[in-house]
């Protein structure tokens, strides 16, 4: 059993870690609840309780627009990449046409590439396609990287399914499409959910691409909107904290609901099999 010393050490470490982890988040939460005209000098813990900082950021700071833009971009990227990656992974794993393996390698390359390596050519490409300063400029490149990830990730999921599934479906005279949609997709639903959750997180958090390809504030995503807002309103701690909460909360909520698939997905990809 645990000795007294072990218990004390354990709880001390956990308590300390919790304080350090939560202090910045708690600081945001409490500061966001100060009145918007409250002249605090920073993080404020004692102040009248109010939601006016939120309404200030929502209307004056235009976070209603930024959040809507982020929602448009993020939902588009998640939908496009899922709809494209599922059949692609199925094709590679089950139908195996000539060259399928090469495509898998390109997919692996594609999702490992840092945005920094691609953002410069993307900018000139999107300019020449006439996509600069449109939602497409933020959606398409991220959809491509998400398809790359999804194709790789779902390929391992399809490969893990038992062969008998496909054989049984073939005996029943099912077409490839029926095999995919009726038999295999329901069986890899957890992997698809994990992919969607991770693509959601990355796209919501994305910064460099939207910074470069979108210069019209009415189409800013929330990360860029927050960065710009923080430059112009750096002394309005309440409004800035409220804006930060609105920026971060959707991802945190998704994380809390899909916690297991988040963590499992992140690690499964990195632990060498």
């Amino acid at each position: 059993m645990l000795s007294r010393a072990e218990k004390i050490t354990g709880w001390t470490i956990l308590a300390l870690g919790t304080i350090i982890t939560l202090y910045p988040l708690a600081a945001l939460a409490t500061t966001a609840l100060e009145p918007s005209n409250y002249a605090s000098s920073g993080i404020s813990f004692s102040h009248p309780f109010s939601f006016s900082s939120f309404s200030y950021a929502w209307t004056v700071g235009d976070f209603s627009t930024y959040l809507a833009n982020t929602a448009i971009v993020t939902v588009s990227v998640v939908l496009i990449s899922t709809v494209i990656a599922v059949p692609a992974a199925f094709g590679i794993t089950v139908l195996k046409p000539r060259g399928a393996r090469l495509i898998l390698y390109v997919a692996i390359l594609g999702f490992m590439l840092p945005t920094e390596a691609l953002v410069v050519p993307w900018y000139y490409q999107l300019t020449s396609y006439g996509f600069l300063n449109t939602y497409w400029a933020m959606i398409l490149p991220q959809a491509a990287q998400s398809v790359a990830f999804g194709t790789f990730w779902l390929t391992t999921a399809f490969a893990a399914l038992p062969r008998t599934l496909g054989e049984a479906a073939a005996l029943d005279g099912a077409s490839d499409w029926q095999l995919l949609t009726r038999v295999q997709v329901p069986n890899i639903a957890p992997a698809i959910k994990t992919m969607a959750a991770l693509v959601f997180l990355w796209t919501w958090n994305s910064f460099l691409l939207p910074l470069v390809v979108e210069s019209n504030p009415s189409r800013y995503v929330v990360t860029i909107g927050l960065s710009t807002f923080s430059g112009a309103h750096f002394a309005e701690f309440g409004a800035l904290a409220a804006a930060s909460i609105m920026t971060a909360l959707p991802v945190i909520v998704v994380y809390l609901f899909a916690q297991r698939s988040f963590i499992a997905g992140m690690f499964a990809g990195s632990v060498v099999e």
Partner: protein
Amino acid sequence: MASSSVSALKTTGAAIPTTSGSAPPRRGAKKRRNRSGYLYLLPGVALLAVFIVYPLVRAGVYSLDTWNGVAPAHYIGAYNWEQIFENPIERGSLVNAAILFAFYALIPVVLGLGVVSLLSRFNRYRGIGIFRVIFFLPQVTVTVVIAIVWTWILAPIGSGSINGILHDLHLGPAVGPAYLGDFSTALLFIGLIGLWIQFGLCFVLFLSGVQRIPPELYDAARIDGAGLVREFVSVTVPMLRREIGAAITISVVASLQSFPLIYQATDGGPGTSTTTPGLLVYKNAFQLGQVGTASALGIGLAVVVFALTFGVRAILERRAV
């Protein structure tokens, strides 16, 4: 993709599946499948070709040019590549990246291992799951938000900041040091923010790993008279080899992609003391009109990501044999 967690996934070595989900029964059927297979792959291949392969080739071409983005480009060979090591700002950014690498990857791994092994018997307690959720939160917090709140915490003055709290406790002056504004400390504190982000990831990963270690191994080590250090070296570390590899690869990529944090918190300053290769890609291409330099740096960054990912993987595989 920009977040540190992207990186999380980017760590994967290629786990190429070799078994198929269905066996094509007849030759004719196989041919049909083969051809229809392309239809399933077509949209994905098109997107990858246009937005991954083509731009990568373009970046390679740009990296051999001098181009301001507007006027005609001129071929200058390997000049941009040589500049990565010869230009003091670019070389400095490599040094900064290496220092950040320590804070993002090495320190969290070592600290995570230490903490988890101290908790190695403790963690069989019920209720430890809640700490897993809490410690992982920085990984799913939007990076710009992290940068903003840490800028407040590290400000020279202000309620709730480190300096403000020290002053309230009569332990510091009214205006304390500007941790992120001082040449000698800015990078250190960017690194500490990175540590704050990455620690939870290591903790969660190692905690689940350590829970799979049979308790008998620890009991045996204790019967043999092993102290905490001995137990750590001969039981915890070897049993967590895979998790350590995963944590290092994930964190390496995260450290190379600290762009939003640096852009928001210091913009590379003061001077160039927190300038990283990622920030230079942005500044060179979109502020200074040096597209070639930026492209060489961007591809260089990708090469480092690949080398480290597959390097760690190779080391782990050799050890595992």
